[in-house]
């Protein structure tokens, strides 16, 4: 009989590894992109790929780690609640920030082909 908790722990470790790679890629992109509107792409990788995926993986790792006792269900539940909060709140916050930045003209829209939002605003 294969131990079921070991399989859950392996799936969780794979998800945490994917999330850490996405986090590093998002951080490098946040440092290297030249403009605010291009850095929003790196922020998307850093939040959804770098926070949502390793939180689900950490919840699976906590379920499989039987040495924590009954408190592992508390850890797993908190991790899943945090993951779904981030999944809902991070795109909303980024969208509000981008819209406010475009509305207040904080930075120029640099690689621009057409900007319908600016044409509609005036």
């Amino acid at each position, binding site marked *: 009989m294969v131990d079921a*908790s*070991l399989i859950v*722990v392996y799936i969780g*470790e794979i998800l*945490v*590894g994917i*999330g*850490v790679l996405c*986090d*590093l890629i*998002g*951080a*490098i992109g*946040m*440092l290297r992109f030249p403009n*605010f509107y291009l*850095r*929003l792409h*790196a*922020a998307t990788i*850093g*939040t959804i790929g*770098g*926070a949502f995926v*390793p*939180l689900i993986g*950490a*919840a699976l*790792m*906590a379920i*499989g*780690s*039987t*040495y*924590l006792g009954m*408190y592992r269900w*508390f*850890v797993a539940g*908190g*991790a899943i*609640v*945090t993951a779904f*909060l*981030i999944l809902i*709140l*991070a795109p*909303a*916050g*980024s969208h*509000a*920030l981008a*819209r*406010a*930045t475009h*509305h*207040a003209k*904080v*930075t120029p829209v640099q690689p621009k082909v057409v900007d319908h939002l600016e044409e509609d605003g005036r």
Partner: protein
Amino acid sequence: MIEEQITTYIMYIIPIYMIAFTLYIIRALKGPSISDTVLAIDAMTYDLAAFLVLLSIFFRSTILIPTAIVLALWIYALDIYVAKYLETKEMGE
């Protein structure tokens, strides 16, 4: 055996998170406008919430879990406050 394996895996995960946090902090310090700073702190703090959950498994202490939930909610409040300030030039109440 499973305890040693999880602890060793998280020990290899921690330095990669530290490198990512350092890169986010560099962008937050030299960001040309207020939006770049807020965006960098935003992405860094969502990753910090995931890092706290991993640390609570690593240290076997469950006191760090409510910290992650509250951190995710407060950084959304920071986004909304800065967006409101940029649009209407006032903080509200």
